[in-house]
């Protein structure tokens, strides 16, 4: 678990040439993306340190899913650069994607297939031979407490169990960076806490770097790194207490409100000055 006085590698502290162990798990630098005339992301930059939990906070429509589509190479990067452990997602996608696990916001498991079949399919996509894939599947299913249901159809699982399965699936190829896009949407309070706890455990016990996109303030802990994304722009980034202090607020909720209000005001005034 990171501490507050750990060497910060987030974009706020200038570092000249980081040592190899300080290469960010994920670095997003100057990324912009448009859908036709509509700009979804505007000069977005931030980094996720290895073995850290970085919360990407933004309302619906802030650009989180677009960002995820770019990091997973689903969309081509239009401008800027995205690196996963130093591997450019555009130039060496194979190396970059090997180190990346992802849980998308919409469910992407096959409901008609069994838990095990879903995991084996994913393992095959990563070129993991069947025997090894079987071993890893059993291990992961045991860890999420679903070992006895390996042969059941995914359709029979609860929402929380499906999410845990998706997280297990994202870990099959042993990535070092895990992306989760609104992973707790539609879950009840207990299942939510369960998922958040599980992912935090992955950070501390396995040293996985996590980027956790959310619009729920209560999922963010004081020790997390925070990136505030609003209308395609990064409004603030840094350790949670730092962001709160810089915004002159008392908690994340207030800081977010203050930052987004400021952003709206400044964009409105710049619009006015452009008109005059």
């Amino acid at each position, binding site marked *: 678990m990171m501490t507050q006085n750990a060497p910060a590698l987030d974009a706020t502290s200038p570092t*000249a040439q980081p040592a190899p162990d300080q290469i960010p798990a994920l670095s997003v*630098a100057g990324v912009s993306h448009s859908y*036709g005339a509509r700009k979804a992301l505007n000069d977005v930059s931030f*980094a996720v340190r290895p073995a850290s939990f970085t919360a990407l906070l933004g309302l619906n429509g802030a650009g989180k899913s677009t960002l995820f589509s770019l990091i997973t190479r*689903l969309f081509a990067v239009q401008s800027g650069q995205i690196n996963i*452990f130093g591997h450019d997602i555009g130039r060496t*996608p194979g190396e970059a994607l090997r180190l990346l696990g992802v849980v998308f916001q919409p469910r992407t498991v096959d409901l008609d297939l069994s838990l095990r079949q879903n995991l084996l*399919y994913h393992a095959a996509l990563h*070129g993991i031979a069947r025997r090894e894939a079987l071993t890893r599947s059993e291990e992961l299913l045991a860890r999420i407490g679903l070992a006895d249901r390996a042969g059941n159809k995914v359709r029979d699982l609860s929402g929380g169990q499906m999410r845990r399965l998706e997280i297990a699936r994202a870990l099959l190829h042993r990535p070092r960076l895990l992306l989760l896009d609104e992973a707790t949407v539609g879950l009840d309070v207990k299942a939510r806490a369960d998922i958040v706890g599980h992912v935090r455990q992955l950070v501390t016990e396995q040293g996985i770097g996590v980027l956790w996109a959310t619009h729920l303030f209560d999922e963010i802990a004081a020790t997390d790194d925070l990136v505030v994304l609003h209308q395609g722009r990064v409004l603030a980034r840094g350790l949670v207490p730092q962001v709160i202090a810089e915004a002159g607020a008392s908690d994340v909720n207030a800081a977010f409100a203050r930052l987004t209000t400021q952003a709206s005001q400044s964009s409105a005034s710049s619009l006015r000055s452009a008109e005059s």
Partner: protein
Amino acid sequence: MTVTTVHSPAPARSGFSAGEYVTCLIGIVWREGLRFLHQRERFVSALVRPLVWLFIFAAGFRQVLGISIIPPYETYILYEVYIAPGLMAMIQLFNGMQSSLSMVYDREMGNMRTLLVSPLPRGYLLFCKLLAGTAVSVLQVYAFLVIAWFWDITPPPMGYLTVLPALILSGLMLGALGMLISSGIKQLENFAGVMNFVIFPMFFASSALYPLWRVEEGSPWLAYLCETNPFTHAVELIRFALYGKLNWVSLAVVGGCTAVFMIGAILAYDPSRGFVRRGPGGEA
């Protein structure tokens, strides 16, 4: 903005072994097969269509159309026997268009997302996906052949084996064509559009329902159109292969078209299309 600094890459294996490529291919085909087994309605509806043509259309036309002895047939044949290869190709045509359309538009977006985060090259993943779709269409064709056998469509036993490579090649061609069309032509985003503008013209302007020499008697230019239609060559490749023969011209056309469509489809494939279509509201 100090994150723009270029960092030296973390040690990681580059490239992929042949074993990884094979594992990936087997996995994709295996999953498609499993999904197919779970979707009985899809299987039944894929079979009903050609059977309606066989049982009703062909029976009605039997007396109208006389078929002379043309290769690969060595005797006079019934009309049902003539159109069987055309119906086999039709199964593949529908299947190819349907599965390709769902790859490009959002219906299967979740599955495409899972597929495309695989670190293997995207072109290879799309090829595997098309091959998996073809495998499903081949299963459908064999199910059709089993029923057709009871309807007195009895090709030589070896024909059931020799037709397999022809089915794989034509399935790939039609799947790649479907993907190229749905990636390249924005207007054809639903199946009705594809049916009107692609499936029906391709199917009717081909040798599937009538031999080209009969078409030529009525309209030479239509015969010429049929002859340049890749679907005609898919039908003829299957027809000859079903009787243990090889039609070289059709093989060359189908092989060439497969390569061109496949490369075009991979280049034109744009996963952001399914998202942009849904509009800004779909993006969060």
